[in-house]
């Protein structure tokens, strides 16, 4: 992590992340919705590709929100609901209707520093995770090497 490099989400970073994601989704032959949120889970940019079902937009946003506020991939959030773990009770404390445990939301980091999160919703959660990972891989070099 370098101090003078991208440390927080901005629209420029969100836009280039989205265009990367859209082109990757086209390569995979999928129509999906992609949401980018900042480090506090607030929406910065959202794109719904042509042909993607209407609810995918909101689900993508939910996934990104969950990944940002828990600082975890959205799929790992369900571990708090494991009855064998001390975090049980999570299910009844589902106070925010954005909370989701569907895989497909990943935090975007610069080193240890959380910048924001990406949420993808297309046909299957497995594909969403793969797409998220590809995008984050592609963006990491930009995040680490671009001056603010």
């Amino acid at each position: 992590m370098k101090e003078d490099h991208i440390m927080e989400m901005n629209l420029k970073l969100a836009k280039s992340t989205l265009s990367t994601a859209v082109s990757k989704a086209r390569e995979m032959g999928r129509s999906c919705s992609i949401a980018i949120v900042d480090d506090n889970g607030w929406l910065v940019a959202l794109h719904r590709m042509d042909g993607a079902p209407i609810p995918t937009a909101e689900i993508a946003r939910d996934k990104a929100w969950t990944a940002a506020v828990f600082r975890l991939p959205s799929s790992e959030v369900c571990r708090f609901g494991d009855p064998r773990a001390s975090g049980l009770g999570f299910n009844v404390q589902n106070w925010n209707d954005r909370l989701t445990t569907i895989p497909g939301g990943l935090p975007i980091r610069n080193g240890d520093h959380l910048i924001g999160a990406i949420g993808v919703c297309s046909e299957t959660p497995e594909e969403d995770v793969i797409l998220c990972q590809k995008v984050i891989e592609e963006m990491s070099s930009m995040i680490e090497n671009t001056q603010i």
Partner: protein
Amino acid sequence: MEELTLELALKMLEAAERWAKDIAAFSCSIAVVDKAGAVIAVHRMDGAAMATTDIAIEKAWTAVAFKMPTLMGSRWLDPRNMGKLIGDHAMGMIGRGKGRLCFIPGGIPITNEENEVIGAIGCSGVPSGVGDISDTSVSQAGVTALYE
């Protein structure tokens, strides 16, 4: 132009953002929705308040749902119109649309050659009352971009 695509939506957002940045000099959120009122793309400019994304989406949704600019609807809700003429206000609109109805000026429907509504653009975050600078004029810049 029969249908709003992601590509067209991004073209509109680009122009509206440029107008907001260079002419209005305010950061705002801009949303484009399709003819169902479903989000195609949302952008929140750097520095715009976090809640403006949702309001921009709601304005665009309202513009599609009522097939008219939200500016027109906000006249209905103007308390100064109450009592002037019977039926000349629509205070009962408040709270309609499952809470999504937003008659704040800034949403403009987009029509095709047959004058059918094919989508809408909404903007939030620009204070009104400063001459020509308002949410509506940012949205208008986005609509104009469709015809360039």
